[in-house]
C-alpha cells in the first residue's frame, strides 16, 4: 500500500501536526519507502498466531481503594500539576476560547 499527498495531509491532520505543502511533499516518498519495506510482513503465515499483548508474563495488581494511596500520584497536587503549564489561571489550565 502507498499513500498519496492527500492521505498524508489527512494523517497529519489526525495527528494534529500542521504541515505545509513542502513538508507534505517531502513526507510522501519517505512514508512510502517505510510502508513498502514493512509490507514484507505479509509474507509470514500468521494463521493461528495470537498477537502479543504482554511481552513478559505479569499479573496486574490492584491498589488499595483509598484516596491518595501514593502521595506522588494521588490528589492534592494542583499547584505541582499546573507548575509547567504555558497558561494557568484560577487553578485551571488556560486554553483559547472554544466556541463551536
Amino acid at each position, binding site marked *: 500500500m502507498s499513500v498519496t499527498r492527500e492521505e498524508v495531509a489527512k494523517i497529519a491532520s489526525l495527528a494534529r501536526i500542521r504541515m505545509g505543502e513542502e513538508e507534505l511533499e517531502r513526507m510522501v516518498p519517505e512514508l512510502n519507502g517505510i510502508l513498502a519495506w514493512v509490507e514484507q510482513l505479509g509474507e509470514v503465515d500468521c494463521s493461528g498466531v495470537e498477537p502479543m499483548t*504482554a511481552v513478559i508474563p505479569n499479573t496486574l495488581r490492584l491498589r488499595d481503594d483509598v484516596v491518595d494511596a501514593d502521595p506522588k500520584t494521588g490528589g492534592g497536587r494542583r499547584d505541582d500539576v499546573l507548575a509547567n503549564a504555558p497558561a494557568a489561571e484560577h487553578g485551571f489550565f488556560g486554553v483559547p476560547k472554544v466556541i463551536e
Partner: protein
Amino acid sequence: MTELTNLGVKAIRDGVADGTFTAREVAEAFNAAVAAASELNAFIVATPDHALAAADAVDAKRAKGEDLGKMGGVPIGMKDLFATKGVQTTAASHILEGFTPEYESTVSQNLWDAGAGMLGKLNLDQFAMGSSNETSYFGNVASPWKKDGTNAAMSPGGSSGGSSSAVAARIAPAATGTDTGGSIRQPAAFTGICGIKPTYGRCSRWGVVAFASSLDQAGPMARSVEDCAIMLEAMAGFDPKDATSLQMDVPAWEAGLDADLKGKKIGIPKEYRMDGTDEEILKSWEQGKEWLHDAGAEIVDVSLPHTKYALPAYYIVAPAEASSNLARYDGVRYGLRDLPDGAGLQDMYAATRAAGFGDEVKRRILIGTYVLSAGFYDAYYTQAQKIRTLVAKDFAQAFGQCDAILAPTTPTASFPLGSLNEDPLTMYLNDVFAVPASLAGLPAMSVPATLNADGLPLGLQIVGKPFDEQGVLDTGLAIQQRAGFDAKPDKWW
C-alpha cells in the same frame, strides 16, 4: 595520584569507602571534565551543584561511619529522558524545552538513594528516536572516537548517544541509558563501552518520558561489566507506580559475577549472518565464540527463523505506541505552546506540535497514526504484534538448547555524522541485531570486543533468558576478560 576521571564505578565507590579520596574530589574532577568537553555536546545541561551536594552527603556519612550505598560517591550522567525534580527535562525536544519536573523518576531516585550524584542531563536523539544522535533539538553529539587518519566527527550511536560519548570520553564514569530497540546497546558498541538492557519490567518506567511503552527499558552504560552490574542493581526494583514493573527481588548481580562458563551452552543464531554485515564484525563474532569456548562454554548453533521480520515489525509497533504516547504534547499542560493570532484550540494543537517536534518524530507519529487508523489496523498493527509473538517464540525455542545467545551488536562500526541522513531506512538498519531482543523483552548487553582496522570499536551482544541478567553479565565478563579491551580515544575536545 591516579587521575580520578579514569576510574569507573567500582573503583570510585571502593576508593571513597576506604578513604583513598573523597567523594567531593571525585565530583570536582568530573565536573571539571564535563565543563571542558563542550565540543562533544554530550550534555544538554550540566548540574555540578547536584554532583557536589550528593558527594558532600556521602563524605558526611563516611565521617559518621554510616553505609554509603551501592553507588556511594559515584557521580553519573543522566539521560535527559528521566524526569529530574527541579532540573530541566527535555527528551532533547523543543516541545519540552524548559519543562522542569515537580517530581523525580523512580530510577533516578533509586540512584540518588544509592549515593550517586548527577553531573548533568545527557543529550539523546529526540524522544529517543534515532540511531546516531542527530535528531536532538540541542544539536548532534560527537563520539570521542575518530576514524584513523580522518578528522570527521563520528556518531556516538543513538539514542543514548550523550551517555555513550560521555562515558567513552571519561567525562562520566557511568550513565543511564534507555533501550527501546537498541538505544543502549548500539551506542555502547559504537563507543567501546558496556551497556545492558535488563528484562522488560526490571527498571521502573515511572518518570521516564515514554516512547514505546511495551519496549522501553532503562539500563546502565559504563566501561566494565562489573560497573554495569553495580549500577543495574541500584536502578532496578519493583515500583507499584509502574503497572508493568516486575514484582521480584533484585538479585545481587555484582556479588554473583562468575566468568567460569563450564556447563553453559552459548547459542549462535545462523540468521544473524546477514548480507551487508561488515567482514570485521563477522570476524569479531568468530573471536567471541573462541573466547566463550575458552571460558568453558559449549558453542551450539541455534535458529531464530523470524529474525528478518523483527525490524519491520518494530517499525510498526514502536511508531504506533509513540503516536499514542506523544499525543500528550498539546501545548496545554506543559512544554511549548504555539498560539497563532486568532487561533482556536485545534489550531493551537497543530501549530504547537508542528513547531515542537523534529522531522524524525513527526515521521514516526505519522506512520503510527496511519497503521492504527481505521481500515489499516489489522493489516499492519495486528500483523506486527503476531510477528512479535513469533519472534519471542523463536527465542523461547532457542533457549531450550542454550543458556545465552552471542551475536554482533551492530552490522557496522560507527559512521561519520551526516553520512546516513539521506534515507531513514538506512539508519533503521543499524538496529537490525538489537531489535529482536527488544521485541521479546529479553535482557541483552553489548560489550566491547576489539578495534577495527579504522581504529573504531566493535561490540559483541549477549542475549539472555527472561530474568537471567546474571547469565548475560557472566558471559559479558568472560568476553571482557579475554578481549582485554583497553583502547581509549585520543583526547581532541
